[in-house]
């Protein structure tokens, strides 16, 4: 009974996989920090320093004029001018966005008679970082297009400002030509350990230095224009200004070495493990059934031959043969299913054969032959239904073995690279540096394999009791 419930739960999860999880584990990597703790860890004592993903800017694009209101603008010039005479205008352009509609337009129209050394325009966004510990890594984006530029040197830089006011430059570049398309700057990516931020901190991780406490941080995009003589009108469009921070904790079960969500892996792995286990068990049982029926019913020479053949196959060492054949034929999922299935029919064939031999002597078979039934007819219509109870029980008891075989194969490295399975998760955990310490990666897949196997065994025993009244104990 318990087995049935557990099994239904797992099957349900496997079908619901695409709904339950928002990410596809094969392709999505780095959705959070590497080796992130499960997010419920944060509620345990002593773990207040863990952080989760923060989207600093909810809507990165400028979809409508209202979006401009989220940002603060500041324009200063050298020598200072009053507001009316400032040559810079920041407006919302409806038609010129990058991927979305709309962008922020920064226009510089030099006024006659103005001699300005430089003009400094900043676009600032203040956001709240609620965690006491630093994020695992963060990534800033700025996308811009220089529509027209004439005799002006434009320097665009992006930096972060912490609550105390220190500025950390993420990237900075100077331009004097127009850019025909949008330029997207992924200003730093701390995974790859490059960029001005890393150099600023002597090639060490900037995240803990910058985000030292919770509070209000600022994300600033700064455009400095240095007009030369005869400067002409200059327009720059900005879009998709974004800042994303990936935390040190994420999800129900954390992440693995590539930042993939482990819970997603688990759910997708359920599909594959169950699929492979069931299919190979079915294959084993079907082959065993056919061989047992034929051998038991047709008797004498065929029986002897088939049984000797199955004995010979029994002698072969399963795991090495499996390894060798998969290594030779290629680790695709169908090969694995086929090979596991072919390895396991022998025991069942013997049992079926014994049952058929005993059934053959029953009077109703004799009666059927007397009436003139052909051999196939007798096998299919009379013997097979009596053997079916054996089939169900053996099926239930063979599946755990198949699941374990598939897990063992995957764990040893012979897995289908396009699918994620539980054995493969364990393989990755073992082979990646530091994987063994990450208990939320190691324990769940194995636990799932064990629970599913156990549930099938319980199911098999229950079926056995139901279908075979002699085994029922008096309670």
């Amino acid at each position, binding site marked *: 009974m318990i087995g049935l419930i557990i099994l239904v739960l797992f099957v349900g999860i496997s079908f619901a996989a695409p709904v339950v999880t928002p990410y596809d584990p094969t392709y999505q990597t780095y959705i959070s920090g590497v080796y992130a703790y499960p997010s419920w860890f944060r509620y345990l004592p002593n773990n207040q320093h863990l952080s989760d993903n923060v989207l600093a800017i909810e809507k990165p694009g400028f979809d409508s004029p209202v979006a401009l209101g989220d940002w603060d603008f500041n324009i200063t010039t050298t020598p200072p001018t009053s507001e009316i005479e400032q040559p810079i205008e920041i407006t919302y352009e409806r038609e010129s966005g990058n991927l979305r509609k709309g962008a922020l337009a920064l226009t510089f129209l030099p006024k006659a008679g103005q001699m300005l050394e430089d003009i400094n325009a900043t676009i600032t966004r203040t956001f709240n970082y609620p965690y006491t510990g630093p994020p695992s890594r963060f990534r800033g984006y700025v996308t811009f297009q220089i529509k027209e530029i004439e005799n002006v040197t434009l320097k665009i830089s992006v930096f972060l400002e912490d609550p105390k006011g220190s500025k950390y430059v993420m990237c900075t570049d100077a331009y004097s030509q127009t850019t025909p398309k949008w330029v997207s700057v992924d200003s730093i990516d701390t995974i790859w350990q490059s960029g001005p931020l890393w150099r600023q901190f002597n090639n060490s991780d900037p995240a803990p230095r910058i985000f030292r406490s919770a509070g209000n941080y600022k994300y600033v995009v700064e455009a400095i224009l240095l007009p030369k003589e005869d400067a002409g009108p200059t327009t720059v469009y900005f879009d998709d200004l974004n800042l994303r921070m990936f935390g040190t904790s994420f999800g129900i079960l954390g992440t693995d070495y590539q930042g993939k969500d482990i819970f997603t892996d688990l759910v997708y792995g359920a599909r594959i493990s169950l699929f492979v286990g069931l299919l190979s068990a079915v294959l084993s049982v079907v082959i065993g059934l056919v061989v047992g029926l034929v051998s038991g019913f047709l008797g004498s020479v065929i029986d002897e031959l088939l049984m000797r053949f199955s004995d*010979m196959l029994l002698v072969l060492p399963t795991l*090495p043969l499996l390894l060798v054949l998969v290594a030779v034929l290629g680790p695709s999922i169908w090969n694995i299913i086929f090979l596991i299935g072919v390895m396991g029919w022998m025991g069942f064939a013997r049992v079926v054969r014994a049952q058929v031999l005993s059934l053959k002597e029953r009077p109703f078979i004799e009666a059927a032959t007397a009436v003139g039934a052909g051999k196939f007819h007798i096998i299919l219509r009379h013997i097979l239904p009596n053997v079916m109870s054996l089939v169900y029980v053996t099926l239930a008891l063979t599946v755990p073995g198949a699941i374990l075989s598939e897990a063992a194969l995957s*764990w040893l490295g012979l897995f289908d690279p396009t699918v994620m399975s539980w054995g493969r998760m364990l393989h990755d955990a073992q082979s990646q540096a530091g994987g063994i310490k990450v208990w939320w990666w190691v324990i769940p897949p*194995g636990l799932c394999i064990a629970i599913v196997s156990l549930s099938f065994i319980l199911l098999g025993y229950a079926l056995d009791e139901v279908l075979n009244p002699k085994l029922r104990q008096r309670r």
Partner: protein
Amino acid sequence: MGLRGYIMKRILYMFVLLMFVITLNFIIFAMMPGSPLERFASSMKLASQEQAEELLNRWGLNESLGSRYLKYVQNMLTWNFGRSFLGNRPVVQEISIRLSNTLLLMGSSTILSLVLGVILGVIAAHRRGGLFDSGSVLVSLTTYSLPTFWMGMIALMVFSTQLGWLPGSSAYPPVWDYGGWPAPLWEGSILGAQIVIPGPATIGGIAYHLFLPMMVLTLFQYGGYLLLTRATMLEALTEDYILTARAKGLKERTVLFKHALKNASLPLITSAAINFGFMLSGAIITETVFTWPGLGYWIWNSIIQLNYPAIQAVFYIIALCVIIANFIADLLYGVIDPRIKFG
């Protein structure tokens, strides 16, 4: 038929199996699509004609299939496995280096699990229906359905990484490779053979490394023996002679072990003998988890690196072990069960 006829039949069957294994080996490695020989031959198209012919001649690849097969059989039977692709040492040498390690680990854990499983199984059968009985059955079922490598990984994680009590790899402290092994207890030669009796330091070091893998392996294997012993004991305990023995006033321990177990041990012994045969394939996974430098680990490495001579040799040896183990099991069966001796 008697004992002798039984044995003769078994020996004949053993040879048939052996030939079957050799043939299968040959088929897999020589004739399957994507087999090593074909890959080798197809890469020969890049070489010049004479070189290709010369190599084919040297390796005997251009002979007929039949003569290749005969040569293969001869090689297998004389233990000539060729040279490994990596390191170019003879495969036999590579195997002999690692064999002792594997035997140490697998042998000790099998014996320990056998003893543990039998004793616990007897006790469970004795206290049938009690807490110990259902508890141990449940535990055995659970450990049986757990994936071995997973438990190994967890054991490594807990004992080796977190607690640091036990080492996580290799069969002896790696320092011994550089500083030399500790002094043996006695070293010399008897009748021309080198005998070394290891001293306490050596034994201690090896035991320290052996402990964790052996424990994990034992944990996994004892469940099967426990369940089997319990089942056969339950059947044996219902016999009349047990009642007589108890009525005679014998101690319960004597009744259980000297009378019931002896009669119940037949399936147990055959099962144990057969398990010995499968020991080596079980070693593959275990040794890989613990990076135990034995035959299993080497097999896995060879398969991953497609080191065909090694794979062939190992495959053959494992099958040979299984065949021999089955034969011994049948032999034991014939000797112990008087129905065969005298029937």
